[in-house]
């Protein structure tokens, strides 16, 4: 009977494709929007992800994220280094500046100064050039967002001179980094040079990045740093989460994406519900005939479930495939760099699809179950 059910459904091409469209569109909307949402809020932690060596981030107690921070006195670095369990500690400066390009464009940039000796704080990989080029005079590294925003397609940024806060800077390489939440251009340079590029107040140290001794627990060391120095110390994961939480708490992004995801669900229910009901209504005589012939209600339920399962499986696959194509298609755009589909999201959209089909299938099925077999004689 399931074969008959499937043929009944696929034989009505208009409704079959209508149902597929409804499920696929709904899945696409839910999966794609959730994927963008998750990746976007994870950009709140990109500063942490771009400094992979740091196990602990130490900051002023009022600092909240890599972008929302309050500078500390330079003595904080020695204080952290003196805490038992700290293997090493290096300074990091984060500030904003204005850049005038050789073509005269103005661009707001984020300047990150990393430890002069170890270069800890730089992204792990380089898209072009080597990390060592930072030893050259006035050297800065630019990220891929900067390459896209400040240069023409095909133009080589390496060797280009910039006017950074009225000082000369030369791009010597391109860092392979995750863009920030605001996709602002980022320039990396040595800490000592960054102090010159970004003049400011007495306290200039944004963060102290620390590593723990072999065998030490980063969480315990972070708590010890806080106890001993009065500074805020968070493990890498905790600070990354803090950046994500900041975006969730301080932007309308969760609400906006939540509304879109909800609309995706509603659109799915509306399209699938309407189409399914029309399909059942058009076939009510056939279902009535089957009941009269001797097909049990349980078999009818299984038939409708098979129909729902088929459109659900194909529509869901199409929707997820659409999301994959979307992510893949935009993977070359720096703003979408590193976007991925967390495994939980397809599961969530699968649950949503199952709920849509259960709701609409049951609504449509009720009319079949209510149909008396005797109705076929009327």
């Amino acid at each position, binding site marked *: *009977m399931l*074969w*008959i059910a499937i*043929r*009944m*459904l*696929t*034989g*009505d091409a208009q409704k079959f494709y209508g149902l597929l469209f409804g499920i696929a569109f709904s899945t696409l909307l839910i999966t794609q929007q959730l994927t963008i949402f998750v990746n976007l809020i994870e950009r709140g932690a990109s500063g942490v992800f771009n400094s992979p060596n740091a196990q602990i981030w130490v900051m002023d107690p009022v600092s909240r994220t890599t972008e929302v921070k309050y500078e500390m006195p330079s003595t904080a670095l020695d204080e952290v280094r003196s805490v038992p369990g700290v293997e090493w500690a290096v300074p990091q400066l984060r500030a904003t500046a204005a850049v005038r390009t050789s073509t005269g464009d103005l661009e707001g940039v984020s300047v990150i100064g990393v430890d002069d000796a170890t270069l800890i704080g730089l992204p792990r990989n380089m898209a072009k050039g080597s990390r060592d080029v930072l030893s050259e005079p006035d050297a800065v590294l630019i990220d891929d967002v900067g390459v896209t925003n400040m240069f023409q397609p095909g133009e080589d940024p390496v060797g280009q001179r910039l006017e950074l806060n009225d000082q000369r800077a030369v791009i010597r390489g391109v860092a392979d980094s995750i863009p920030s939440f605001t996709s602002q251009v980022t320039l990396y340079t040595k800490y000592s040079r960054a102090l010159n590029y970004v003049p400011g107040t007495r306290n200039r140290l944004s963060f102290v990045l620390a590593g723990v001794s072999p065998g030490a627990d980063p969480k315990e060391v972070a708590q010890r740093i806080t106890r001993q120095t009065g500074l805020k110390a968070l493990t890498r994961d905790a600070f990354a989460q803090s950046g994500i939480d900041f975006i969730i708490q301080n932007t309308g992004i969760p609400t906006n994406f939540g509304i879109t995801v909800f609309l995706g669900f509603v659109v799915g229910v509306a399209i699938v519900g309407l189409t399914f009901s029309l399909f059942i209504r058009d*076939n009510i*005589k*056939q279902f*009535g*005939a*089957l*009941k*009269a*012939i*001797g*097909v*049990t209600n349980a*078999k009818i339920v299984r038939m409708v479930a098979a129909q729902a399962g088929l459109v659900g499986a194909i529509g869901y696959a199409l929707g997820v495939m659409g999301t994959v194509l979307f992510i893949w298609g935009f993977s070359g755009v720096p703003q979408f760099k590193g976007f991925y589909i967390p495994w939980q999201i397809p599961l969530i959209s699968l649950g949503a699809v199952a709920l849509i089909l259960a709701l609409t299938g049951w609504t449509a099925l009720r009319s079949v179950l209510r149909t*008396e*077999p*005797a109705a*076929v*004689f*009327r």
Partner: protein
Amino acid sequence: MDTTAIGGCAPEAAICARGIVREFVAGQSTIRVLHGIDTDIRSGELTYVVGESGSGKTTLISIMCGILWPTMGEVKVFGTDIYGLSDSDLVNFRLNNIGFIFQQYNLIPSIDAAANAAVPLIAQGVPLDEARARAKVLLDKLNIGDQADKLPNQLSGGQQQRVAIARALVHEPRLVVCDEPTAALDARSGRRVMDLLREVAVAPDRACIIVTHDNRIFDLADRIIVLEDGRITHDGKEMPDDH
């Protein structure tokens, strides 16, 4: 399964209906459609149930084939008190013992003629290929074997009706119920269908009931039961003169 005879019921009767009353509730009032029908349907006969619209013939036939509960009364089909069965047993009883030919055929539009004819076998759990093969044999017998792979909308009305007849007979039921089989046909086609039904549906071990008000085919019946206002007013070989 109860196989005892009800009062006054011939043991050889295919259907034995006693005291059948059926009422429908319409708003505040209750309408009695059947007023205590007593009748037997015998195997090997082509039995017509005739009457004007609203006379209760469809209600009676629905009760006799186990798809509409009577308000009162008993129905035994081949000795089984069908309304004493559980819901699922009654559905299975219909599946194994009764074939239906509906006025509008109610074929499934997206499966071919062979599959449509094979529906009762598929519902019984017979594998699809075997069910189709058995249906094709019957379609051959009905002279539409060459149309077995066509969808219903590729068939003429007469061919669709033959598919419906094949569907009613494919599982070799002991009772065949037809609802207005000639209503949509001209006189010649109607008689051809009735000849066909007599040829394939009437058998010594099979009862065949036809609900109709088509007076062009009355002469083809073995027995005619006339219903008027929910009561049997005539039961005989021919129609009474006043009809």
